[in-house]
């Protein structure tokens, strides 16, 4: 993020600032001292912030959440910073690396490229929701068996993508797997092991 040297920020007259100023102006006009005190205590700020939050109902890994979130919060940041589901990784924040891949109503999605509020009423599955208790998902088993990772950071995204790749019917051949997994970067370069893991699951015929 760079500091723009002479840019007048258009955000100066944002709704938030307006709310903040108007509440202070109202306070000044009415002058009941508790309100002025409220402004001093930045309660106006809290009011403004509350206005800016949007109600959101989500089901994440089978658990229902009733939340109030800022519209600018991404699904990825909601998962990691507010729901503390840090298995979903941030690798670029621009939908270019796939580390943040989750399933939304069964479809693979880059959670960094989607705002949380866009998913009202939807069902999210993250890497934490893939295993059944202590029993690993077949794809997780296969990644361990084929050593489909090194540092492990891209792994949750690779696995979520791999499960979707098989479900979509895009795991028909090695070439097809490579093509349909190319949105998930592994800088350690464990690609051929990942492909072997996906082929193993596909050929094993287990339900994914």
């Amino acid at each position, binding site marked *: 993020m760079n500091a723009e040297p002479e840019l007048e920020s258009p955000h100066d007259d944002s709704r938030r600032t307006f709310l903040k100023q108007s509440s202070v102006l109202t306070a000044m006009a009415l002058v009941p001292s508790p309100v002025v005190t409220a402004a001093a205590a930045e309660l106006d700020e809290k009011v403004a912030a509350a206005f800016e939050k949007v109600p959101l109902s989500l089901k994440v890994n089978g658990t229902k959440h009733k939340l109030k979130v*800022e519209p600018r919060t991404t699904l990825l940041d909601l998962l990691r910073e507010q729901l503390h589901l840090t298995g979903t990784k941030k690798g670029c924040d621009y939908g270019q690396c796939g580390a943040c891949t989750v399933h939304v109503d069964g479809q693979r999605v880059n959670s960094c490229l989607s705002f949380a509020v866009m998913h009202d009423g939807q069902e999210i599955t993250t890497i934490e929701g893939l295993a059944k208790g202590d029993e690993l998902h077949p794809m997780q088993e296969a990644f361990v068996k084929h050593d489909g990772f090194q540092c492990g950071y891209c792994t949750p995204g690779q696995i979520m993508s791999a499960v979707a790749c098989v479900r979509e019917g895009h795991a028909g051949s090695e070439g097809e797997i490579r093509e349909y997994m190319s949105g998930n970067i592994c800088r350690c370069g464990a690609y051929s092991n990942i492909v072997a893991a996906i082929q193993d699951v596909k050929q094993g015929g287990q339900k994914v």
Partner: protein
Amino acid sequence: MKAQQKQIGAPMNRVDGHLKVTGAAKYSAEYELPGLAYAVLVGSTITKGRLTSIDAKAAERAPGVLAVITHYNSPKVPGYDTAGKDPSQPATVGGPIKLFNDDKIRFNDQPIAVVVADTLERARYAARLVKAQYAKEAHQTNLEDNKPQAFLPTSAKKNPKSPMADYQRGQADAYKTGAIKIEGEYVIPTEVHHPMELQSITAHWEAPDRLTLYDKTQGTLATRRDFAKEWGLPEANVKVIATFVGGAFGNALHSWPHESAAIIAAKVVNRPVKLMLTREQMFTMVGYRPYTWQKLGMSATPDGKITAITHESIGQTSTYEEFTESTLAQTRMMYASPNLTTRYRLAALDIGSPIWMRGPGEATGAFALESAMDEMAHLLNLDPLEFRLRNYTDTDPEKNRPWSTKFLKECYKLGADRIGWNKRKLKPGSIRDGEWLVGYGMGVGTFGAHRGGAHASAQLRPDGTVLMQCATTDIGPGTGTAMTQIAADTLGIAPEKITFELGHSDYPQAGTQGGSSTVNSVGPAVQQACLALKDKLRELAGAQNPAFASAKKDDVALGDKHLSLSSNTAARVPYADLLKQAGAASVTVEAKPGNEGQQYSMYSFSVHFAEVRVHELTGEVRVSKLVSCADAGTIINEKTAANQMKGGAVGGIGMALMEHARIDDRFGRYVTKDLADYHVPVHADAPNIEVAFVNQPDLKVNALGTKGIGEIATIGVAPAIANAVFNATGKRVRELPITPDKLV
């Protein structure tokens, strides 16, 4: 007792595999701490000059903002005053830039402010409101323009025996008078490590003089030392935790400005602070493989004996640190040339400091050397493999010492068979598959089998399990797994009974994970800690059963619940009794290398064979097959070691075909800002990579016989691909990456 299956060499699954596939592995930005605040950096928009003002008012007023810290209001960092001023010293304390200490701008996107807020969104928004004014100065960001100003590194000026000093054997520049000679200039552009985990730190002042850092680092102790110095604290007061590191490839071998920023921010707001860089910031402030120009001249006899080589290079560094790497090392020792000259220079530019990137300088140098070998073989009309065999050397021609071990010829054979080298035609452009031209190439790699001292502890618990600890890190190779295997074999127990903990500065000391040295160094410490533990247990048991007192330590056997003797299974002491009496049974040992390094030249070797297809019309290059063979000593885990080799080869594909961080010199700013502009290999770029190990122990390096894998996995891959492209097309590309525009 049933003899334990041998674990060393076995393709054991990773001990932390379950944590990694379930999302339970915690990286440095994933620790939940009460009151956690978020920090976002603001970077300079100029490349060189001074800050004249920063307007932080709007940011400070923004909702949720706890602090905006700049050099105008930053607290005094005590270590800044005592930091060395010598630019030849690697890293002033806590990072090369004394962050928020002055108004000087040394590179574009240098942090000028850090904004701290109660949520990430608020910190990010407020960071955009910070406005700065600058007094701009003219900058230099282009190495080619600055070659005339290149200088000998200070380390070489001070010490003529430094590996960075000019080197000469036989006659200087003798290739120039050779009858058969080649000469070429080679360029490797700036490449960026880009581990998938963004550089992240969570800084927590647990007390005014006690600091805990959850940090992405390759060395918990190096990071502890840097920040203890920066804050004038005893090292014992600083804790560095790096249980999981999401890749690094060298870029966490140095302390960087964002780490200083998080620590300052945590001090100011008196809350734990998390700071995660953006992908753009990963280009500008956490190191890179430096743009390097090289010139290589070589002469040979008509029958293929090299008579002389001169290899010169100019690498890029910053204006505030002298970064050096061993670009010319392989040239000095790989082939038996009687006349050899190397000259290494630096050019200081207004860009952040570089840092070693996988294979580091050796990979850069090998691109020139191994390309030149192919060019000379072509000129001589010789098979490039045969040319290398004619110049093979059984002793180190640089240091005139024997090799500790060298099985490179065996690697050549393994690789040539697997790639089908006999299919290769001497004449370029001879093999065609539809619209694709097919070619074969090879490249050799080598890297020192480095070993340092390391400590490890081992503790027997009453349930018969063993806890081992070491401060080393695991950035991905599978250190914990390899160490568990070594411990299992040494103790004679199942690996499931061993827990190996790492990545914490409070654990017994070990060096930084870099330079392919971890298994070489920590492996022996683990082995010796296990032997010491056995002996300690024997001693303890001796107090209860005289059979143990007189037993040899090799005879001690760890059963499920009892200590016994292999020669006398009737002699048994239950662990519960053993530990009840003694309280605990734990040992910490240090393992250090002897003086073998002075008597022998110790190196790992690799050879990479590539088959490429080049599309005749579009110039697209596809690597259709790669074979990597290594003489890396004993292989501890066949599965993770092969994975590491494959990963290095994928890195080499990136180097050869796509990676190029580009600066617009008018502004001194990177125009490649993310992974859409800076291309790294994806699934579709990576072929099946076949790996073969000679797997012969080198007992001069350590008792395990390991030599190291991480670097040789990458060194030599890029020239193998470039040489294969030449064999396919007859086009010699000496400036990486080999993009289609260079072939059509």
